[in-house]
């Protein structure tokens, strides 16, 4: 049974390209375009990993992460940002910057 990853970003092209890339690497992917959608998707489908943008309309990535970590304390979540890491609010989630260093990201999610 393949691993499942939820990709969350308000930029649909970003979601699509990432889904295609992870599919190529053998992942089952799910799509969400906001924090609320992500929580709903996780509640319904219980993904193994979540890769989520921080800056989104509606519920942002940080708030969504906080809710997810309450609901699913063991769920690994990686946050993406176009800002500098130093400017992002500190949480327990790991943060990567855009454009993504994909080999490093795979390393992070696949081990």
């Amino acid at each position, binding site marked *: 049974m393949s691993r499942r990853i939820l990709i969350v970003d308000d*930029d649909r*092209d*970003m979601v699509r*390209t*990432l889904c*295609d*890339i992870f599919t*190529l690497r053998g992942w089952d992917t799910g799509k969400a375009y906001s924090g609320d959608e992500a929580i709903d998707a996780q509640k319904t489908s219980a993904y193994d990993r979540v890769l989520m943008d921080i*800056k989104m309309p509606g519920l942002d990535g940080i708030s969504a992460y906080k809710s997810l970590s309450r609901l699913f304390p063991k769920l690994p979540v990686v946050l*993406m940002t*176009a*800002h*500098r890491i*130093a400017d992002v609010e500190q949480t327990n989630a790991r943060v990567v*910057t*855009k*454009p*993504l260093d*994909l080999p490093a990201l795979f390393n992070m999610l696949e081990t």
Partner: protein
Amino acid sequence: MGVISRRSIRTKAPLAAVALILLVVATLSTASIVVLRRTLHEHAAERLRALTDQLGETFRANMAASRVRTTGIASRPEIAAYLGKPSADSEAAARAALIAVGPQPELSLAIEVRDVSGRVLLGAPANPDAATLIGQADTSDFRALADAAAASETGTAFGKLRQSGDIIFYPAAARVPGQVGAFVVNWRRIGNTAQARTQLAKILGSEAAFFFGNGDSTVWSELGQPALPPAAAPPGQVFEFTRQGRDETVIAVRGLIEGTPWAYSLEFPSHVVEAPARAFMWTMSSIAAGCLIVGGLAAWWLSRRVAAPIETLTNAADAIAAGRTEERVQLSRADELGRLGASFNAMAGEVETVRRHLEDAVEKRTGELRSAQESLARREKLALIGHLASGVGHEIRNPLGVMANAVYYLETVQADASPQVLQYLGILRQQIQLCAKIVNDLLDLSRATPVNRERVGVDRLLNEVDVRLQRTETRGAFVADIPPDLPAVVVDPVHAGQVLDNLLSNALQAMNGSPGTVRVRARATGDGFVHVEVSDSGPGISQEHFSKVFEPLFTTKARGIGLGLALSKSLAQANGGDLTLVSAPNQSATFAFILPVAEGSA
């Protein structure tokens, strides 16, 4: 006043001295002359009075002798006999008697017997002209003379002086005893004899002049020669007047001869009286001239001695006032002026020291201000750029991310595509990475993270940079020269790494792919800093660009936005150090990254 005050002391002092000497000499001379003249005049007056007394005595004696002689003639019995009984015999006897007693030609013109009306009864002329001379003279006053003789106790009287040509004479009349109305008249010449002259000279000396004449100023003589009468004055009083015809002031005294109508005047010419005063004046003038020359020379020498050093000091003071504070005076003397010169030099030294300190302080302060101003301007510019960058950067990173993902996907699924497709995909990937780097650099600018300084070794900083460079740059290598005893520095390792990163990649790029070497040399400067100098072997920085290398947005590279050096300098300064360009224009560039030494390291 202005003209005098502008003149040099060297001129004024001798002039003042000469003027003072002149004033003193003139005052003393005038006072002395006035006193001397008064004294001389008093002395002359005393002499005149003394001579008058002497002459008075002489005249009295002479007059007495004259009376006796005339009375003696008048007493001859032959005359009385002739007058009592005139006959040819008695006349001859009487005439013989007259001739027997005189007349002497040099003393007398004639001896006559006359009646009261002046008629000549008998005459004995001393020379053939006698009758003519006497006849020419005015004898109208003979009755007055006869009356005076008749009334006189001695029976004699002297008449006024008369003048005929150059000859001056007077009648001495004596009544003939026993013959009323008959008188012997002796017409005597005014003494022009050698004996008379000798006698007079003996009394008067050579300087005095003696005039003799009628009290009513009608006839006057000098040594038997006719002369102009003196000015009228009371007898015995010394007075001054200008003698006519001689244009000369004389000091005179007038005397009356008792029992005669005659007067005399004793006169000293002023030039004779004042001769000692003139001699004194000459002496004084010579002394004054001597004093003037000696005094003037002395004053000139003294003023030179005093004014020359003052002039030197004044010139030096002017020079210092004009800003030439290295000016000093050379006064080789130990007096007050010498001490003044020494004090002046000490003061000038102080002035120079203070001026140098001031200049240094101003220069240092100006440099600091300029540097602070540049630093502030750079930071402001960087802050503005950072503010913009953080806004724009975020928006660009998203599309870049999508593009990068897309390229990655294509490279993965099209791994067996034509080489040209793969090459183009590679170009896309590299360009996206370049864009991402530019955006990252821009975002770093707006980073206001606090500086986390820590103690770290320069070698460790370089090693980390080396690792990063080997991963990204492929165009060259660098040689590091780091002394083993180099002290540790205290900086934020991330910041310091960023600066070194920037310097080294710039240096590698500057060599344009040529096989040069980048050298990194670290050394402690001993003033609490370590200098890490990064040199390349490239063409260096042109004069035109030299002053702009640290300005934000300045670049000479085909690629790059010109933030690296500006950012590095800001970071270096934020860490208590600096970043400077130490090479000259157009020489291979060397940048010095200055880092503060950690406390306790040396």
